[in-house]
């Protein structure tokens, strides 16, 4: 079910009402059934894929929990089962075409006259998210950070919980399972806070992301060779805005829907385009994924022991401690995999490596920043980070590596700055949106705390803000485009 639809609004009202009206004992069942219905509205038959993943981890985690720590061989074998099943599902549904296509290209290249059959498989919504959640659960049990969950109702709900099911935030069992067992009592602020976040999310999606989308699509549909450098920058910024509004909208709605049931799920964004370095960016962008990658990929590859499990912090926390060459390899490998997680295309791998390279350079230039303190100023860091971060969206959105390189080449060609080829509105909208994001950041950090000290003024401002948001949501609400992260 997509969030930006009338169906979801009615579904949510029904689920929240039943959740609070029915006795506590049946609430979890209601939520489990509602989560399956939510997923089934897209393709009910793909529920089976999700339950294969969930059941595998449910039983292997219990088996690991029942195996003494000294029996490392058996524990490792059980963990391997989890990894094989989950990564196998992910590979089959997400990477089969990519692998076979690349194998065929390789066979062609070495002159072997054999081609594997190319199979395109429909990617189940949310598979990248729920497989990561189930893997993290079993790994945490294996590491002894949490105990295996005995109740399949609670465990099943941890996997299927509908607000975060399709596009995260990627939830840790240690954070969600205790809340599911807690069964909170009704509080008005749950509804108010949840409603607020849902309105924010719908506004970002239907009023902003969906209206930027046609301009981005038009630009990336054009032959890259005909674009100017100004076009490439504009498209990088516009896609950066689109994906931010789109994905943060989903996260707002997910957080809001869960909050309405008294459940807190972690924040996924924190003004990423106000980051002053790439390390900072990854503490602010898709925080739940970057912290997952840190705990289950980067730190193990860098041979650093993981002693806690939390979805907070982002990958930047883990990078803080690394400087040796072995860890540099881990850095690049992690980011290449992170890129591939986003999509089965070399463009995503390039996107990952681009980020790794800049993080690597940031680390190497640290001594220089110590010598020239002004380089540590927020504004300087921000002015360098923002354009580089935006430029990284080019490989993320372009159709192929060839298109990516053509577009990036424009950026370093002085002659390509002398003209522009798209409608003037696009450049104006990109500039206005960037100013809007900056103003929002300052309003949030500096104006709002002061405003909150004057209750009547703050009440008036918020009332006007919600009126405007509601009118926009009413006018623009229609499922004309999927959330971008559904495809991942």
């Amino acid at each position, binding site marked *: 079910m997509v969030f930006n639809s009338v169906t979801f609004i009615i579904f949510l009202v029904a689920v929240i009402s039943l959740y609070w009206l029915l006795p506590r004992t049946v609430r979890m069942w209601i939520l489990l059934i509602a989560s399956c219905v939510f997923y089934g509205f*897209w393709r009910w038959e793909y529920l089976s894929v999700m339950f294969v993943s969930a059941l595998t981890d449910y039983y292997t985690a219990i088996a690991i929990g029942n195996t003494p720590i000294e029996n490392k061989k058996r524990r490792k074998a059980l963990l391997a089962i989890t990894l094989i099943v989950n990564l196998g599902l992910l590979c089959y549904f997400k990477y089969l075409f990519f692998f076979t296509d690349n194998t065929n290209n390789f066979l062609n290249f070495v002159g072997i006259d054999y081609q594997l059959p190319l199979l395109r498989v429909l990617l189940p919504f949310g598979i990248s998210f729920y497989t990561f959640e189930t893997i993290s659960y079993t790994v945490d049990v294996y590491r002894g950070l949490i105990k295996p969950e005995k109740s399949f109702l609670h465990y099943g709900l941890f996997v299927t919980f509908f607000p975060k099911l399709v596009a995260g935030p990627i939830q840790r069992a240690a954070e969600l399972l205790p809340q599911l067992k807690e069964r909170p009592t009704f509080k008005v602020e749950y509804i108010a806070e949840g409603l607020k976040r849902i309105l924010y999310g719908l506004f970002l999606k239907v009023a902003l992301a969906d209206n930027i989308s046609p301009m981005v699509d038009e630009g990336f549909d054009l032959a890259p060779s005909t674009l100017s450098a100004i076009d490439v920058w504009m498209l990088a910024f516009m896609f950066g805005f689109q994906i931010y509004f789109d994905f943060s909208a989903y996260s707002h709605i997910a957080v809001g829907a869960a909050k309405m049931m008294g459940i807190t799920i972690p924040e996924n964004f924190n003004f990423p385009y106000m980051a002053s370095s790439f390390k900072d960016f990854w503490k602010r962008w898709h925080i739940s994924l970057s912290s997952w990658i840190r705990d289950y990929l980067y730190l193990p590859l860098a041979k650093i022991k993981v002693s806690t499990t939390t979805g907070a912090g982002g990958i930047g926390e883990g990078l803080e401690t690394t400087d040796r060459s072995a860890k540099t390899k881990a850095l690049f490998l992690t980011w290449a995999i992170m890129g591939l997680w986003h999509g089965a295309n070399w463009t995503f791998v390039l996107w990952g490596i681009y980020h790794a390279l800049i993080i690597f350079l940031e680390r190497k230039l640290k001594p220089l920043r110590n010598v020239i303190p002004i380089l540590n100023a927020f504004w300087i860091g921000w002015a360098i980070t923002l354009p580089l971060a935006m430029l990284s969206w080019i490989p993320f959105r372009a159709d192929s590596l060839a298109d990516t390189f053509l577009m990036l080449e424009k950026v370093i060609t002085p002659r390509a700055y002398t003209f522009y080829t798209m409608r003037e509105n696009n450049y104006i909208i990109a500039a206005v949106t960037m100013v809007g994001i900056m103003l929002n950041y300052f309003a949030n950090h500096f104006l709002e705390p002061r405003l909150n000290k004057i209750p009547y003024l703050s009440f008036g401002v918020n009332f006007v803000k919600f009126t405007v948001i509601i009118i926009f949501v009413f006018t623009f609400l229609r*499922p004309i485009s999927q959330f971008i992260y559904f495809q991942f």
Partner: protein
Amino acid sequence: MPSFFNRESGKQVNRGIFMKRQKLLFEIILGFGFAYYIVFNFFSGDRKFEDLALGTETVSYFAVDERQRPIHIQKSNQEEADALLNGWKSRGSKPVILFLGNSQTHSINQQKQGEVNFVEILYKYSLGSPLDVLCISLPNAGLQEFYLAYEYWKMKLPIQAVVLPVFMDDLREDGIRDVFFTDLIREKFQLKDTADFAAVKINRELQSYWPTNENSKMNVQSEDAPVLDETFQERTENFLNRKLEGRSSTWGNRSNVRGEFFNWLYKLRNTVLGIKANTIRKMIPQRLQLNMHSLSLLVKECVKENKKVLLYIPPIRSDAKLPYDENEYAKFKDSVREITEVNKRLIYFKNFENIVPTELWGYKAATNLQSEREVDYMHFQYKGHQIMADSLQHVLEKAIYPHGI
């Protein structure tokens, strides 16, 4: 520390916390209430975005008989394709001269009782001849859309000749608007010539609108929900939208409200940047190239099928400075003329830019928030339509059908 407070101040603390906790909910509820008031008082009623863009002086006009019943010869929306086809059949299914055009073709400035547009005049001229006159006039259409419209209609009608105005303004347009082509999307229509990048782009855009379910009905609901193709949610969403539209005209009016909002943004932009109707608009190279490619594909297709084509530069008012770069405008006219060089026996070129006198033009709704109206470069009065009809008739008789139509 509250535990050290006496009962009275403890109550005050609790009341304060209570007020703080409820404040957000009150803000949202009041927001809903005020939004409801605004939406139902300002967004309801019958609204047509196109008329709003034309301003008060110009109206869209479609042919009617003496009893005010529609004569189905001209449509500005593909949704009315069936009416156009039925009208053509009822008149004897004669071979067709197909006119393609934009709002200039169907709109009349300062219209008075009984005044009609040039398409109706030409239709009346054709009465009794072995040919019928039909027109597809899509507001703000680009040549990509004209090419697509031609390719589609040639499957439905025995087209003998095509008359096509080439507006410099329209070369800044891009893309295929689903709102005008719901039939094509439902029928999964595709252009055959996929060797050209313009055709590939048009096909790709059409595909993006295609429902995967053959039975799914392309209507307002599903246009609003293309991402849900064939899922249970698509059916639910369409059902809910139909119910909501049945109960509330405000809900059904949302697309017009969106149009008005963008129109307001457009005016705001023009106000801030000082853009007026006569401000020079530069060509957008990518769009120009795609549109000119589409035009040449259309022409080549007609030549291949031995159909005659009249391309003309449409009338534009000459008493005000043109909103085009002079060099670009001259180059544009030359490029259109060059396209007709492909085959002089079948393809004709006419420049009508100066045939409508100054006094027959009017004003349109302002394109900014400061002034009330601005000069209209596109729409002229009835007498202008009469001049247009006579000029076209002259060319049609002389060049396209020298033996009379």
